[in-house]
């Protein structure tokens, strides 16, 4: 039963992937949670954590390594994965394949310009679109959980088009 839905959802993602999309009208902010200094610039960031940086496979390390690519963005009421999202998800998948013990939550979010129940459903769609893409890249499905926060956890608090663009997102967070 649930396999059918997953296939259906995955098919929708692939079908919609061809659609054109925005970039967000302004760049998303840099991730704020970097308690430790950045790793040495000469090293390949994904492969070699420095002794002074966050522990490899932790959320802090993942967020730092992704450098913004732990978040993908969507158009109003949409959940398709465009080429920019796909690149970000490939980076996430590479990390997750490298650190095979790390599990992750994909959070789906919506902007405030929707009705509450619909936004919860939309957040589910977005989280699953990102998750299914990660699975299609080889990340084991049982390492990924999804949660929709609907419009309840905005990243940008303004009531502007650019704030809404930043809030229509799926965020991958490692489970420490």
């Amino acid at each position, binding site marked *: 039963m*649930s396999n059918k*839905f997953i296939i259906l959802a995955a098919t929708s993602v692939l079908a919609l992937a061809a659609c054109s999309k925005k970039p967000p009208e302004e760049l998303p902010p840099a991730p704020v949670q970097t308690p430790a200094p950045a790793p040495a610039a000469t090293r390949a960031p994904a492969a070699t954590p420095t002794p002074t940086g966050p522990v490899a496979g932790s959320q802090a390390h993942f967020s730092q390594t992704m450098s913004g690519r732990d978040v993908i963005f969507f158009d109003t*009421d949409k959940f398709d994965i465009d080429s920019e999202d796909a690149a970000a998800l490939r980076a996430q998948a590479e990390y997750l394949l490298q650190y095979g013990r790390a599990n992750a939550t994909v959070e789906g979010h919506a902007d405030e310009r929707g009705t509450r129940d*619909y936004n919860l*459903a939309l957040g589910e769609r977005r989280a*699953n679109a990102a998750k299914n893409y990660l699975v299609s890249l080889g990340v084991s499905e049982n390492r990924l959980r999804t949660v*929709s926060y609907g419009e309840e956890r905005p990243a940008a*608090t303004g009531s502007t088009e650019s704030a809404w663009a930043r809030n229509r997102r799926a965020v991958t967070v490692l489970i420490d």
Partner: protein
Amino acid sequence: MKIRFLLSSILACLAFGIAAPASAQQLTLPEEELETIEQEGDGTTVTVTAESWQDLGIAIASFATNEDVATPANAQGTSALGHELSRIVYNDLRNNGLFRPVGPDSLPRPNYAQVSEPAWGTWRGRSAEMLVQGYVRANADGRLTVGCYLYDVVLEEQLVREGWVVQPAEWRRAAHKCADLVYSRLSGESPFFDSRIAYIAETGPKDNRTKRLAIMDSDGANHRFITNGRSTALTPRYSPDYSKIAYLSYLDGNPRIYVYDVDSGQQTLVTQSSNPTFAPRWSPDGRYLLYSMAIGGNTDIYRIPAGGGTPVRLTNTPGIDVGGSFSPDGSKIVFESDRSGSQQIYVMDADGSNQRRITFFGGRAGTPEWSPRGDQIAFTHIVGDFRIAVMDTNGRNMRDLTDAWHDEAPTWAPNGRIIQFFRTERGTGETSIWQVDLTGENERRLNTPVGASDPAWGPVLP
């Protein structure tokens, strides 16, 4: 805590006031009560409809007592309690823009004998066309008897009278019953004052907001927070008998519907499925719950017996099918779906058959709620801004009732004449509950202690 409310149709004569109870209803209050806040409506704006009865001048006099004695309902005794009762009747009518009421603070106080024998000359001289009088009496068993009389001053005639026996803790309900009696007798409409509202109380900044399940009487009194705010709570719905509240909580980190038992304070998951569930809705008879569940990102609507059992999936499309509101006879369900590409409103039979779209006007349409009268559907009309709108049950004769930046989630008064909804302010995201009548000409904000969203208006209490 259990409170027994006894309703009796009273009394041939004031002197023999206590009739036998005609029906009994057990009511309950939540155990996890954290705070109680009582407040009166502010009445800064009023809702007026175009009916001719609206122009009636009504004097609402202080309720008398046979003997001023102590009562748990009022520290100053039954005389002061009588005055408070009449003020509630007055505020019910005034705050809802009904009639042209004059309150007890500016009127002479009838004595006990005058309750059944009005001093007509006094009231004629005050250009009151209608007169509401009443009394309160403390009974030997600790309960209170409240009588309510409506007179036509011009005809010098009694139009209707009724009485109720209440526990002291439920004294306000007797006043709401009196306001309902007056309103129904003069307007021909069904009552609605003696009812309650569940909603979400909001505090804190937009990006870290605390959302708590809360309940209050229709006039904002007897306000109580039920959840403590550690988990986000959303979208409550009272069961038709007020014994339970279905709502969404992130209690275990995931959005899931819980059914909170008001009496015991216990709550249970609507379904053991690990999939997220949201948008709970009761059937009019309280026997079933609708909920929406996402599986692999695809949301459909399910029905489950309220006491637990096997869920039945009612929709099966790759789109988002969500919400749902039963027609009053339980035969149909109106719901929203984006299967056509954007949020629109559909109707299906209660078993999920005969699904068909009914909204074919500009913009998107969501959160449909079937009127308790059966003749209208209220919904959120998304046309750039978000408006509260109504339409016939076939989708025709759509009318926007509000015009603000973001109004959402209509809920009907029990008599289908008033709609509550919540309004979000641009920028701050601050929310408040408002109500509007079906003319859309007048709306008012409800007084709540903090920000307020997701109102759910329950039926009239028995």
